[in-house]
């Protein structure tokens, strides 16, 4: 059971989310409608995880996201899951640029309908992992990167390998799809992680690669 604080300005969604979470055995200790109330609630009670919308009053821009970053800057270990209506990678970049990505998540709101997936993401964030919406990953890796991003250092073949890995295929499946040997895939993967300055032993590889991409993106 997780103790959560929920920030979402739409009453309908707030109630819906609370219901989903409660029915799944979690406890919503506060459900608030704007960023100021979120800050107060977090200061009053230390939750296991914060779930917040991006767009909130008073200006209906990225208040929720900024509140999340602020909460993280005062307490870097506080797990935060950001729910967004936008695939826009600029918001994900804003969230993940600077500071540690551990215990941070960026999920599309639609994903909430896939209750199991949503709960799984929530638990992973609460457990200190990084979660990035598969749709954002797909958009980022489906295209060649622009020149100023870290992925530009990869060869076209390495990029293909990375895109397939990001979609969740294991080395064997990647090898089958690209008509190369598994040993070649392993070699490419090693080269990719070296070029992106990533530690291959740590965490989820596709998330690491996407993070490298986001951190090279303008925010």
């Amino acid at each position, binding site marked *: 059971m997780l103790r959560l604080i929920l920030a979402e300005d739409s009453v309908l969604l707030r109630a819906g989310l609370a219901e989903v979470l409660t029915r799944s055995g979690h406890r919503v200790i506060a459900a608030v409608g704007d960023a100021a109330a979120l800050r107060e609630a977090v200061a009053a009670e230390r939750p296991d995880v914060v779930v917040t919308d991006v767009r909130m009053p008073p200006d209906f821009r990225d208040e929720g996201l900024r509140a999340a970053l602020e909460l993280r800057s005062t307490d870097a270990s506080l797990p935060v899951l950001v729910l967004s209506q936008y695939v826009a990678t600029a918001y994900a970049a804003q969230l993940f640029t600077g500071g540690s990505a551990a215990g941070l998540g960026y999920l599309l709101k639609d994903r*909430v309908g*896939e209750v199991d997936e949503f709960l799984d993401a929530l638990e992973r964030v609460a457990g200190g992992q990084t979660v990035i919406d598969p749709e954002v990953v797909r958009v980022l890796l489906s295209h060649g990167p622009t020149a100023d991003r870290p992925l530009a250092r990869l060869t076209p073949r390495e990029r293909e390998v990375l895109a397939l890995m990001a979609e969740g295929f294991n080395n064997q499946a990647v090898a089958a799809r690209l008509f190369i040997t598994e040993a070649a895939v392993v070699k490419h993967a090693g080269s990719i992680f070296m070029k992106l300055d990533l530690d291959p032993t740590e965490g989820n590889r596709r998330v690491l690669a996407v993070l490298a991409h986001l951190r090279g993106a303008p925010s």
Partner: protein
Amino acid sequence: MRNGPRRFLFSWWPWRCWGYHLSGAVLGYAVLAVLAVLTGAGVLLALLGIGLVLLTLAAVSGVPLGALERRRLRLVEPVPVPAPHGILAGAGPLSWLRTRLRERSTWRELGYALLLALAFGPAGFGVTVLLAFSCILFATPVIVWAIAPDTVMLIPGRAVSGPLEGLGGTAVGLLGLVVAAYAAALLARAQVRTARLLLGPREEDGRVLELTRSRVRLVDAFEAERRRIERDLHDGAQQQLVALSMTLGLAERELRGVPAAAGAAELVARGRGEARQALEQLRNLVRGIHPQVLTDHGLAASVAEVALRHPVPVTVDLDVPRLPEPVEATAYFSVTEALANSAKHSGASRVEVTGRMAKGLLVVAVTDDGRGGADPSAGAGLAGLADRLAVLRGRLVVSSPVGGPTELRVEVPCSG
């Protein structure tokens, strides 16, 4: 002078009028010399080509003179005369010249320059001469006293014997000063009226100004309406659909464990899939109306976003700061329109978007390596863009020779 002719004499106004005419005489002869040299040399050298440049210079010489004259007029006229020209922020010298030569006010200013050189300048000179003689006469006793024992003759053949006898000259000088003051005032009045007529905006220019303003209002209203629709969709339909898919998701979970409800679970799952598709469509629609990332992160980030989704590889090189909202929105929709056109018609394999600020002018170019031959007049989207740009005093340049490449360039002044 309207407050009474006598009070006028003892105010600052005669001095201001004299100053105005003295400077006017100097300026008038200078203009005469410049115009004479430019036209003379221009006509003589016309066959060599350089003469045409000189003649063009002569034609637009009224523009800087007009600006100077409108300032100089403040000496004798408290109400300023506004400039009649349209504003050309950030345009190059050639486009400045083209626009100015097409404006009627440029030719009216040239007419004023001729009047100044041939009539007002000499008249001002006359006033100055009268003033100078009057001053000398007024000072006769002092002059007589100063240069004695040499003789002074006010009237040829009759020497003035001493300073006291020179008082007659003083009286005439005083009269001359009064005449010079009134003459200066009358001449100044004539010149103010002429200047208002020739150097100020005409009613027709005023109408254009008003028209532009009403178009700006229209575009602002249109933009506000787009925002409202986007907000309504976001706060209404989108949230409802998310809530719906959440409820369906919960229902699916509850039904999953019940073997008897396998059919119902399948239906609920299908319903959830449909809700997800609707959400996706709605999200794309909302993005097309007004992308939130444009408001929050600006032009570069929002164009990068579009580039990621584009079917053809797009290189984005936008080095621009945050700009006024209408400029960002217009530039953004120009780029998306250009990208859409290039995907639909050009057969391009690469597209490049570049953007820079240059002297307060935002220049964004979208270039593809496609087959070209795009007709700017055929696309309603392009015409709409050109209209939006015109309101911001920007412009749209499309270059698309058959065989390619196609370049669409947008220029928007940002200095306000």
